[in-house]
């Protein structure tokens, strides 16, 4: 029999061509995670997955359970239930430890060591040595824009520099999954932008990132997807657009400020199903024509309009809509 006459796809075809390529394990998978501290359930059945090069934002107010979730992932808190895997390896295994990089909220550095010494110390703790360690330290210093500060003591750095070094210490072993726990706390806008650039550079290299914050603008700028967390649960998850679409569809928000007695303003806002946020009345409307009706009613109630604006809902609006609370409660 002539092999050339065998039709493609028949049983005689070489088997190797038919086998599917093995799938790359998911960088991070969390399933039904529960963590309790006494009577308090800090993480209540959270599930999520993270792809390579993806940045997932965990958005929620202080005490929502973001940091506890991160600590469970990094192995510093033992979950009461659920499962966490890093590239298929259970959390706590050496493979998982090496694949994970953690930037804690605190400045977890040695204040009496220099920037370079700090990075070298944490590199050694991850098993780096020799030229590999030196290269990694140099790379991290450049990444954090601290190349000219390698010999400076940490205690002499500015707040923003300390934050950047704190991040560099978390990725000194070049992990493929990085957990950033509110890395911009207490830094000025300039340093914050620098930190954003650092994170974007990591993501461009294919690093999977979890980024916890209670700043909506940060989540909108950096994250491909956002999980909104409240009371230890993910109340909504998706892209920025999906979250807004699911909560508001095509509706818009009207923000109006009034002069007058605050109790009268509050009563009027409540009558019209609005909310007072930072002193501004906030209403969700289907059509822009509803604005005129609202303002006319306010005038009849004796409220003096100071200013009014129309905007598309954002993540903060979504959080408020879903939880009834502000992000920065």
């Amino acid at each position, binding site marked *: 029999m002539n092999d050339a006459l065998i039709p493609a796809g028949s049983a005689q075809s070489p088997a190797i061509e038919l086998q599917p390529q093995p799938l790359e394990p998911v960088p991070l998978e969390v399933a039904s995670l529960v963590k309790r*501290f006494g009577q308090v359930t800090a993480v209540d059945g959270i599930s999520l997955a993270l792809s390579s090069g993806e940045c997932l934002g965990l958005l929620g107010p202080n005490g929502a359970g973001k940091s506890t979730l991160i*600590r469970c992932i*990094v*192995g*510093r*808190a*033992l979950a009461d239930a659920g499962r966490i895997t890093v590239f298929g390896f259970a959390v706590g295994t*050496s493979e998982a*430890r*090496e694949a*994970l990089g*953690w930037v*804690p*909220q*605190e*400045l*977890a*550095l*040695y*204040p009496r060591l220099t920037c370079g010494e700090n990075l070298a110390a*944490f590199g050694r*703790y*991850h*098993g780096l040595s020799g030229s590999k360690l030196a290269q990694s330290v140099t790379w991290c210093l450049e990444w954090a824009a601290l190349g000219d500060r390698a010999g400076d003591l940490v205690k002499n750095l500015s707040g923003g520099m300390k934050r950047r070094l704190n991040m560099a*210490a*978390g990725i000194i*072993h070049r992990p493929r999954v990085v957990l950033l726990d509110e890395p911009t706390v207490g830094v000025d806008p300039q340093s914050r932008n620098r930190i954003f650039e650092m994170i974007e550079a990591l993501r461009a290299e294919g690093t999977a990132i979890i980024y916890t914050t209670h700043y909506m603008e940060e989540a909108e700028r950096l994250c491909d997807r956002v999980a909104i967390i409240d009371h230890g649960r993910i109340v909504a998850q998706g892209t920025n657009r999906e979250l807004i679409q699911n909560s508001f569809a095509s509706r818009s928000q009207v923000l109006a400020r009034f002069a007058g007695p605050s109790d009268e303003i509050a009563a009027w806002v409540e009558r019209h199903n609005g909310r007072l946020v930072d002193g501004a009345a906030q209403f969700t409307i289907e059509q822009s024509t509803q604005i005129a009706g609202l303002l006319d009613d306010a005038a009849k109630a004796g409220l003096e309009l100071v200013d009014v604006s129309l905007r598309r809902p954002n993540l903060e609006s979504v959080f408020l809509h879903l939880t009834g609370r502000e992000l920065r409660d």
Partner: protein
Amino acid sequence: MIIPIVRTALMALRRDRPALAMSFILPIGFFSIFAVIFGGQHNSTAKIKVILVDQDRSRASLELAKGLEREDSLVISTRPSFKDKGAAPDYTAAAAEAAVKAGDAPVALIIPAGFGQSPISFGGAQTGPAIQLLSDASDMIAPQMVGGLLQKAAMTAMPAAMAEQGMKYTDQYVGGLTPEQRKIMSGNLEQLRQIESRLDAQADGTAPAHSAQGSADSGGLVAVKVRSVVGENKNGNMISFYAAGIGVMFLLFTASNSAGALLEEAESGTLDRVLSSRVTMTTLLAGKLAFNTMLAFAQLAVMFLWAQAFFKLDLFTHIPGFVIMALCTAFAVAAFGMVLASICHTRAQLGALSTLVILMMSAIGGSMFPRFLMPPAMLKAGLFTINAWAIDGFTKVFWRDLPVSELWPQVGVLLAVGIALFLIARRIARRWEYA
């Protein structure tokens, strides 16, 4: 406005429990320790162990031995106590000297052969061989006490010898109570008074009978020759004792302070970050223990080098013993510091607890005053401190010139204590491992 300030300070103190404890417990603890040692609040006065070697075996020497045995403040030993009493041979002069050198007893008395022929003398007219008092120069009190009690025993326990010697004196100097004899006796009494005056003058202006070179004490009824068998050729008399005592106390403070870095790291989150790497808690604690041991060893080395340079301590001829003792002490002390750090939750707590525990340990363990001053119960309590074992070991090396092989009890205890304390610290440190 003074009352609100007092009130605020009182509220702050009430909430700062370590400071509160320091304010009351530490002074009470220290007062109690000093009261027990020096205040006579205990029933058992420190008894002095005396090794007695009777080479004479005469009636007078046996009576003197009985008199010494009746003294409450002395424990007379004629044979090694660790052997079976029935089978153990009595101490010889050489064995007694070796026992004093080894620190088994601070004093040994050797009654020489021929003592009984002329046991006592009046006014320093020594005719027979003198009793030898062998002493350990590190204990400055015991030889003097034993010397005094020896004279007391001679007065009370040898009436026959006293009477016999009195008769001899009567025959020798008086010969009958005729006017002429009275004249002779008065003359001799005057002579005795002159001798007494001369001896008093010597006692006022010179060192006591006990000295490093040894001396013949001719001022008493019984002639005694005092000889230091330990420390007689030492340059720095008690330097090694103080170097070890003070050194260990400050080592304990340094070790607890250094171990306190663990608390700072826990507070700053650095500990969490380290434990999220390849480093486990056991590795981390072992690393800290190794560092603190090296630090403590370096401290001891510097202190003994200083003593060598400025106080003529003979360090370089005792290097092996020093290295062994310093390493074991440093290890135990480092582990002790880690236990303190792991028990505490804040630096303030650690500061208070370490001050309390270390000062107490140092007082009981002999860092502040020599242990031979302590009553038996306190001596036993001292064995529960690192200080006592370390000081005993350094004393063996520098004072008694004992070989390294003799250090095994101290080395064994310090290493065992270090290991046990490290395991305890590891156990307590579990609270940092996971939330």
